[in-house]
């Protein structure tokens, strides 16, 4: 009983407090203030989220059968003059098929939704793994220094010059059929170098700050310092690197899949690119087939650029005045 009393009381206290002093300032104004100050960042996030939302909601709502080969049907006149329901590939956009159907009778709208989800999922896996390896190596090199640092620097400098897509193509030539998850892991493993550089540089500047010294004098271990002092300060950098890594992985995977070397059994935007290149969507003028996936990719990457530019503005105030 005592518990319910206090919970009933606290909102009242908070309410009066807000109304009298902070009501205008605190919520609405603060959010709109943040939005105004970081227009680029917020609209970039909105663009990226809209793609994610489209993929998640779309693939939850749409019947997966629509994305299967031979789904599209239309009434056609057959030889004897009667009208029957027949397979209808290459349909133009209509009320029933919002983005028409492709060469194989898949509903393009449905396939783009499932494909976007597959591609985003792959990018997410690659981002997590790339950031994981990159952060770990960056910390090891930056914090402990010495020969470990030398190895990390040399390795990341050498690997970063090897064109990622070339390496990926070569590796995939020796592998059997990949799944979306395996491709994500593979891309993560070969694209951690950027994160390592950023994290290492930050750790180098952070580790000599006074508060780190103080923790050392207080007798905290290396691991404790890393988790309580360094990681919280690095979080924004790691977050920015994660966004970049996901987008980079998505573009890499689309490049690989467009050549027909990616996962073949699960829907993805890259696999879609492979089909519309291979089966001549362009000479046939089927803009509803190749247009939508390109649009989705463009929206996502433009969003990413805006987020990066927005983060730059926060870090570098000189850029703010002129946009």
């Amino acid at each position, binding site marked *: 009983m005592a518990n319910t009393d206090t919970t009933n009381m606290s909102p009242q206290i908070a309410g009066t407090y807000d109304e009298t002093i902070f009501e205008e300032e605190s919520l609405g104004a603060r959010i709109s203030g943040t939005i105004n100050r970081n227009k680029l960042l917020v609209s970039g996030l909105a663009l990226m989220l809209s793609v994610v939302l489209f993929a998640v909601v779309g693939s939850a709502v749409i019947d997966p059968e629509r994305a299967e080969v031979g789904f599209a049907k239309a009434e056609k006149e057959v030889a004897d003059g009667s009208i029957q329901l027949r397979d209808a590939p290459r349909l133009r956009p209509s009320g029933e098929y919002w983005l028409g159907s492709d060469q194989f009778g898949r509903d393009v709208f449905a396939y783009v939704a499932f494909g976007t989800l597959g591609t985003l999922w792959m990018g997410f896996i690659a981002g997590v793994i790339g950031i994981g390896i990159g952060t770990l190596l960056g910390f090891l090199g930056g914090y402990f220094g010495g020969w470990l640092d030398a190895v990390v620097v040399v390795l990341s400098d*050498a690997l970063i*010059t090897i064109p990622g897509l*070339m390496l990926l193509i070569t590796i995939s030539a020796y592998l059997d059929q990949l799944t979306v998850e395996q491709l994500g892991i593979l891309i993560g493993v070969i694209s951690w170098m950027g994160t390592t550089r950023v994290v290492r540089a930050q750790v180098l500047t952070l580790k000599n700050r006074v508060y780190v010294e103080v923790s050392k004098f207080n007798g905290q271990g290396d691991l404790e310092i890393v988790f309580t002092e360094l990681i919280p300060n690095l979080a924004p950098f790691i977050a920015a690197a994660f966004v970049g890594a996901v987008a980079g992985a998505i573009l890499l995977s689309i490049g690989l899949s467009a050549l027909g070397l990616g996962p073949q059994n699960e829907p993805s935007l890259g696999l879609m*690119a492979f089909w519309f290149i291979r089966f001549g969507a362009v000479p046939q003028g089927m803009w509803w087939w190749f247009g939508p996936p390109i649009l989705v990719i463009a929206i996502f990457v433009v969003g990413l650029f805006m987020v990066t530019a927005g983060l730059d503005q926060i870090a570098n105030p000189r850029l703010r005045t002129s946009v």
Partner: protein
Amino acid sequence: MTVDYVLKRLGMFVLIIFVAGTLNFAIPRLRPTNPVEERMNQLLQQAGGVHIANVEQMIERYEERFGLKNPLWLQYVNYWIALSRLDFGQSIAYFPADVTKEVRRAMPWTLGLVGVTTVMAAVIGSFFGAWLGWTRTPLAISFVVPLLLIVTAVPFYLLGLLMLWAFTVFWPILPGGGAHDPLLAPTFDLRTIIDIVEHAILPAGAIILSSIGFWGLGMRGMMVTTMGDDFIKLAEFKGLKERRIFVRYAVRNALLPQVTGLAINLGFVVSGSVLVEVLFAYPGIGNLLYTAITSNDYFLIQGVLMYVIFAVGLMLFIVDMIYPLIDPRIRYRSA
């Protein structure tokens, strides 16, 4: 520029080649079974495109060349000895053609396409970005910057695809593939040159359009930062002409990081050109790699990859050598 600095960069170049070469050695051996042997057996069974005698000869050469019965370290040593002679073996698909010969035949097309477009995009983009960073017209900034963002956001090959549709289907004025008219004799007269340029417009346009934004936006950012620097203020207080401040003070200093950008961008362009070449059936390195992969031509794959990494590494080394010469603020001393 000190000897120390040159040696360090040279060491980096050697290291890149070493890492790439080791990867090239290790990747095929990570499989439990031998992919080349599998491929040979497959050819033996088909005995279609290649005669059985040829396949047997290939296997023999292959055994002799790689000595797979040897211990791993000896294979590794032999591998480097062969590489140092630029000997990548013989193509499986085009047996008995040398891998090196195939690569050298494709290289000029890619160097021409990627080289010319990269330089053009860098020059156009940088000056465009410089203007965007200098001008105070809000109209230019609020329209051109988003436009650049969007064009850059679409990957090369997809932009190329859109252009292919626009100029060969929607408004058919340009050839849709290849590097030249196959009926035209390969002589160097005006007609051939026009034909080659005509075929290069679409793939080159795709690469230039999508990398102009990279250069332009990077340059603009550097211009804005430079314009806030004290030496610009000093130049203004001295009453120098605006044009002089723009060219000699702002652009010159903002341009420097763009040179490093050139090095970073190069690998990216080379990768992207694989897809552009495949899309436009352009007979360069990218298309060669694609053919090699679709026909499981492992020696050709390895050869192409090593050549590309060698070229990119060499370019990086050259940029590293040029950079201290053009940046007045950097004087490399042995620390």
